[in-house]
């Protein structure tokens, strides 16, 4: 009886976590290695230039530690005002346009062809980069915050309409059915069954988009669409690292305040 006991393994080997077939594992590892070799091979770094840049990095770190708020304050102030007004107006207009598109892109509310049209609008808005849109809108509207406003509004549409549409599609169908059973029309279903369910999420999304729009407004200024980004770009071009450091610190501070403020507001509203 004792002899019949099979020899239990005395060592435990951890099984593979990702790819269970050994050949696949080999193939993936080899291709990753090959890619890295190829990618790093197409890289030519001028180490002399990098070394030269290090002193500049030092000056930059210095600028960060001793930010210079005063000497370019009027430019910074102007840039901030542009950024903040642009952010707010773009979010309001973006949300106002997104709501009908979002409703149109919800499969459970509209007919198939409206659904397809609205989803196409969303796809276009999502796949175009803000910066690229900004380049064209600056060419159309001229330099300044109006082009930035248009860019951010356009970018907000893809974001809010898509998430709103997904949320409407996930809304509880029983509530919709209950309202419909009272003889309610399409608008009444929207108002009494859908809107109460998605409103907290819509408010949360709008606040989140406000936050994103401010961050983006710091970027699109680089191509001439106004805002704090233009001021930052000028400061770096002029090698005024103190002012650049000050601008970045202000941006970080506002983003942090916006993030905490919006998460607090969302918790308060939900």
């Amino acid at each position, binding site marked *: 009886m004792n002899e019949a006991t099979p020899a239990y393994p005395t060592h435990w080997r951890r099984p593979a976590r990702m790819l269970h077939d050994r050949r696949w594992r080999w193939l993936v590892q080899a291709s990753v290695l090959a890619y890295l070799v190829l990618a790093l091979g197409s*890289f*030519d770094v001028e180490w002399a230039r*990098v070394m030269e*840049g*290090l002193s500049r990095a030092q000056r930059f770190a210095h600028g960060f530690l001793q930010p210079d708020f005063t000497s370019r304050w009027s430019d910074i102030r102007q840039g901030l005002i542009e950024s903040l007004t*642009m952010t707010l*107006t773009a979010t309001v207009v973006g949300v106002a346009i997104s709501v009908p598109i979002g409703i149109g892109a919800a499969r459970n509310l509209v007919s198939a062809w409206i659904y397809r049209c609205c989803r196409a609008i969303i796809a276009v808005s999502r796949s175009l980069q803000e910066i690229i849109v900004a380049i064209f809108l600056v060419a159309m509207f*001229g330099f300044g915050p109006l082009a930035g406003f248009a860019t951010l509004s356009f970018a907000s549409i893809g974001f809010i309409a898509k998430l709103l549409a997904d949320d409407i599609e996930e809304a509880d169908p029983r509530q919709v059915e209950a309202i419909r059973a009272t003889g309610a029309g399409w608008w009444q279903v929207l108002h009494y069954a859908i809107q109460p369910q998605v409103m907290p999420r819509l408010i949360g999304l709008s606040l989140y988009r406000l936050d994103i729009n401010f961050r983006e407004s710091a970027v699109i200024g680089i191509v001439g669409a106004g805002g704090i980004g233009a001021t930052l770009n000028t400061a770096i071009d002029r090698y005024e690292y103190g002012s650049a450091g000050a601008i970045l610190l202000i941006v970080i501070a506002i983003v942090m305040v916006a993030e905490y403020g919006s998460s607090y507001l969302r918790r308060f509203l939900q």
Partner: protein
Amino acid sequence: MKSTSANAGAPASHADAWTFRTPRARLALWFGWLALVALFVYCWRVMNADTMWVFVADAPRQAADLGSRMWPPSLTYLPELLAPLWDTLNIATLGTVGGVIMAVPVAFLAARNTTPSRLWVRPVALWVIVTSRSINSLIWALLLVAVLGPGLLAGVVAIALRSIGFVGKLLYEAIEETDARQVEAISATGASAAQRLDYAIVPQVMPAFWAIALFRWDINIRESTILGLVGAGGIGLKLQASINVLAWPQVATILLVILATVLVSEWVSARVRQAIM
């Protein structure tokens, strides 16, 4: 008017007609909307104080003009774009790899259940995450081009630095959501802190980790296409050069290539994430 006399606190006197909201809620809502509209109008006026409406009125004509110049895209320009496209893919991929490598320790230091010190280390790690997140990769690139010189390296580092915040934030949230019972089970076998991490926490966050990294890679492809605008290499350099010489058919070609790249990368990352999850 009947509903205004109805009091929510006193059930004895109820309104004749049902209303969607209480009068007080309606009033608050009305004032909220009024405040929003007032703020909007005020911001609009401040923003457009210097706007040249002549240019704006001209916009449709400008758009039509630009459109006619861009059409048809110059297809002969396509072969010249292959090398910059390869550079762009490399910036995104190597930047993601670098960012993920830096983000993993930050995430473990920031997660409440794995941080060595909640009082000292965690705030620092969270600060790193917030700073990285609040500066867009284009701004990182702007700074790094000034420091490292124009080229791919600045782009890779910019993408990596921007990715730390994103990956770090999502990963530390995933670590905090891990099942504490598995950690307890592993520690009951007498495992050390490092073994606990390796056998209890890492296997739980692994799927989330791959999903986050792929998601960020997808975003990085988008972002790396424009980094060239500030001199950080890739297809954006070609875009900037073409815009500067007003070669609009070339711009149209580049935009189409960018669009195709973004769509393909989105599809790839969605498929791979589906396979992993």
